C-alpha cells in the first residue's frame, strides 16, 4: 500500500511538474526517508500564555470555519484541498477522517481558502507516539497554500483553533513537526500558547502494535530554536 501510494504520488507530481522537478522531489523524499523520519513531538499548554496574546482577534481579512462533515464543505474548497496533492489519495483520506470524527478548520483570506488544519479531540485516528488523555486535543496536517505563505497565516490559524479548543475545556494541543522542518519548528514556538517540547521520536506500526523510539534528550536541546522554546514559561 505504501509503495503504491508513493508511486501514485510521484506519477501525479511528474504530470504536474515535469521530469527534473520529479527527480529532485524523489531524491528529497529518499533523503528524508532514510535520515529524517524523526519528528519533534510537542504540545501547547492551553492553560498558559505564550509569546503573543491568545485573545488577539483575527485580522479583518481572515476568517476561520470549522467543518465536521463532507457535506458542510463547499465543493470548490473541497476540490482545492484534495487537488493540492494527489486527489486519488487525498479524497478517501479526508473523507475517512471526517467520518471518524475529525474536524477540519478552514482559513480564508479575503474570503478565499488560504489553508487548513485538521483537529481531533482526545484521540488520534492513527496510533500516535503516546495515547492522548482527557483534555488533550490533536492538531495535524496543517497547510497554507503557496500563494498565501509568508504572512503568518499558519500562526493565526493555529492560535484561533487552539483558543476554540480551550473554550471547549481542552488543556493541551498536541502537534508534531519533522525534525528537518526548521521553519515550522520556529513558527510553532511563536504561538499564543506556551510550547512544551517532549522529545524527538520516530514510530512505526506493525500488526496493530505501535513501536516508538525516543531519542536522547540532547538531540532536542542542540536545536537553537527549540532551546529558545523551552524558555517559554507557563503563566
Amino acid at each position, binding site marked *: 500500500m505504501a509503495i503504491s501510494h508513493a508511486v501514485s504520488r510521484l506519477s501525479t507530481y511528474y504530470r504536474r511538474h515535469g521530469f527534473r522537478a520529479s527527480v529532485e522531489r524523489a531524491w528529497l523524499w529518499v533523503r528524508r526517508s532514510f535520515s529524517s523520519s524523526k519528528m519533534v513531538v510537542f504540545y501547547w*499548554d492551553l492553560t498558559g500564555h505564550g509569546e503573543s496574546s491568545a485573545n488577539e482577534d483575527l485580522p479583518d481579512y481572515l476568517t476561520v470555519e470549522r467543518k465536521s462533515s463532507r457535506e458542510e464543505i463547499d465543493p470548490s474548497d473541497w476540490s482545492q484541498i484534495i487537488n493540492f496533492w494527489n486527489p486519488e489519495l487525498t479524497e478517501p483520506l479526508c473523507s475517512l477522517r471526517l467520518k471518524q470524527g475529525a474536524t477540519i478548520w478552514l482559513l480564508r483570506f479575503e474570503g478565499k481558502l488560504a489553508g487548513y488544519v485538521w483537529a481531533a479531540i482526545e484521540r488520534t485516528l492513527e496510533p500516535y507516539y*503516546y495515547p492522548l*488523555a482527557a483534555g488533550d486535543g490533536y492538531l495535524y496536517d496543517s497547510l497554507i497554500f503557496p500563494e498565501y505563505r509568508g504572512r503568518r497565516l499558519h500562526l493565526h490559524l493555529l492560535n484561533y483553533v487552539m483558543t476554540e479548543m480551550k473554550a471547549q475545556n481542552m488543556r493541551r494541543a498536541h502537534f508534531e513537526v519533522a525534525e528537518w522542518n526548521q521553519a515550522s519548528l520556529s513558527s510553532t514556538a511563536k504561538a499564543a500558547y506556551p510550547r512544551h517540547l*517532549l*522529545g524527538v521520536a520516530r514510530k512505526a506500526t506493525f500488526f496493530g*502494535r*505501535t*513501536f516508538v523510539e525516543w531519542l*536522547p534528550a540532547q538531540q532536542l536541546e542542540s536545536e537553537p530554536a527549540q532551546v529558545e522554546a523551552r524558555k517559554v514559561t507557563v503563566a
Partner: protein
Amino acid sequence: MFGYFRRHGFRATLERAVLSARRLFSGTRMVLFYLDLQDEGFCAATKLPDHLEVERKASLDGIGAQEWRQISEFWNPDLCRRNFSERFQEGASLWLIRAEGKLAGYGWTMTGRTIVPYYYPLEGNYAHLFDFLVFPEFRGRNINPLLVGHILNELAAEGRSRAYIEVREWNRRQLNSLAKTRFRRLGVARKATLFGRTFVEWSAARAGPGLENAQIPAPDAVA
C-alpha cells in the same frame, strides 16, 4: 534469588524462578494510568480512617530502625538499602502507611521527573507514583487505595497537575486496587532503554472491569 532461597527453601524458590521466567517473556507489559489532580472532578478522600496514618520520608535517616528492618528484610536487605538510597538521592519521597501504629505498607513518588525514562517524555508539574507495597498481613483491607488516595490529596494540595502510575498487566491484585481510585487508563505498553534511546511498544489495552474510571473510597466506606 539466593536470599529468597535462604528464606523460603528450594521448592518455593523454584516456583518463584519459573514465575519470573514466565513474566520475563510474557508479562512485561504495563498498564499505564493518569489522573488530573486539579480537575474539578478530582475529590479524593479528605481524611484517612482513624486507625491509619501516613508519613512522608525524604531520606533513609527518617525511617525508624524497626520499620527499616521490616521493609528491608521483606526483600533483599542489601539491594533494598542501595535501591532506597539511590531513590532518595534522586529526590524521591517514600510514603509509609501505618495501621494502628504498625507499618502496613509504603509507596514512592517522584515529582517533575522519573527515576528511569518513562514511556514517553513527561513535561510539566507532574508526579510519578511507583513501587507500592502492602505487607501480607495487612492485605485485603483497602490499604493501598487509601494510601494512594492520601498521596494524591497531598500532591494536589502541592499544586501538582497530573499523577501517573503503572501496574504490570499480570498483577490483577494491583489492578483491582487501582480500580478503586480515580486513575484513568492511558494505555498498555512495554519499554526498553538501550544506549540512551527508549523503545516503547504500545498495544491494545486489555483491562479488567472497572479500570476505566473508578472512585477513591470515602473513609467511612472502608472496613
